[in-house]
């Protein structure tokens, strides 16, 4: 059975010397894994089309006996090429993808999560300070999955609580212009740190690095 979808590539890894496993985040089909046969050959029709966070239209044949479906065609819509030009924003996008991976099941529709990830990447493309944008992503993802914190009944101070509310609502794109009080950002970051550990059992890998504010991590 051939299915069509629009999806973001959230992980790739070699399967054999010539084929690649590509994991997608889509709206209707949720997180799916496809095998792109021959994708690692230089003359493959997939060449140059399968890389991290590419947004694409894809068609695949659903496998009846495994969770690994067969990728047939890909048409790239957007490559988010800004991710190539700075490891900081790539780290943040990767952390968000990891968080989605840890909090959702594969082959289950994720109607709200896919547009959230897409909007997040668009907001990230605008640059500026990204720490509060990433906290907004965490809050919104938790809310989407029905496990968000009750902000009116938590230990945040009123000003910090107001920031948390602001981060959880409205368009993500408008948040890149927001210049919140650094103290409040730190408070929300600490609050979500504890909340994530409590609900997920451990902090998802890469959160510390993704939320480090200093741009390049240079030594000396």
């Amino acid at each position: 059975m051939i299915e069509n979808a629009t999806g973001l590539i959230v992980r790739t890894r070699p399967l054999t010397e010539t084929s690649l496993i590509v994991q997608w985040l889509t709206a209707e089909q949720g997180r799916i894994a496809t095998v792109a046969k021959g994708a690692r050959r230089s003359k493959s029709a997939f060449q140059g089309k399968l890389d991290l966070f590419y947004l694409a239209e894809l068609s695949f044949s659903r496998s009846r006996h495994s969770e690994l479906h067969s990728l047939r065609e890909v048409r790239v819509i957007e490559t988010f090429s800004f991710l190539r030009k700075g490891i900081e924003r790539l780290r943040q996008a990767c952390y968000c993808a990891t968080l989605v991976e840890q909090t959702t099941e594969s082959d289950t529709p994720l109607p709200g999560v896919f547009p959230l990830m897409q909007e997040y990447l668009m907001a990230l493309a605008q640059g500026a300070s990204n720490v509060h944008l990433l906290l907004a992503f965490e809050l919104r993802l938790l809310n989407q999955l029905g496990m968000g914190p009750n902000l009116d009944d938590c230990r945040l101070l009123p000003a910090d609580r107001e920031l948390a509310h602001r981060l959880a609502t409205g368009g993500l794109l408008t948040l890149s212009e927001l210049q919140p009080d650094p103290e409040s950002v730190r408070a929300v970051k600490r609050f979500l740190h504890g909340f994530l550990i409590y609900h997920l059992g451990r902090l998802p890998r890469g959160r510390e690095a993704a939320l480090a504010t200093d741009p390049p991590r240079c030594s000396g």
Partner: protein
Amino acid sequence: MSALPAAIVALIASLRSLPGIGPRSAERIALHLVQADPHAVEQLARHLTEARARVQLCATCGALTETSPCGTCSDPRRDATFLCVVERPTDTLVIEKPGTFRGRYHVLGGKLSPLNGIEPEDLRIRELEERLTREPVKEILIALGTDVEGDATSFYLARRLARPGLKISRIAHGLPAGAGLDFADELTLSRALEGRRDMKQDE
């Protein structure tokens, strides 16, 4: 049909872990080996263990070698002012093939990959910085892959290694030799356009 002896099953399992060897090839090789001349098999086994024991990574550049520093690092005819940065030890062999690069190498040992937890401290970047203080390097050629992580690593390196008097360049990416424009994917084409070069009469 009788079951295979346990020794052959174990041999097949070992062979299957090798790259490019599927179950059928593994079985064919195993059945060949157990019926081959014992001396030839002993020699094969010796070559395997010896190669693995002797080949190491060059302490300076990180390439595969039997002596450290390697032949390239200790060859006075190689240009010590020109350093080519690659991802894996085998990438040096690829760059060596055309025979046009006369500088030396530095193998990073990977690329930045936040999804897999590979951060700058996991790569041989500090070693590269140390080389810059010891060796008369004037130009660094970054020759990493052009996927998202490869590009992000190249940008990171260019920023971190920047210092007065050091030229940092990247290998040009573009159309494969002998191919028509209609075969290039959009990304390759846009890179080829970005990396366009002046066609001066005297070049």
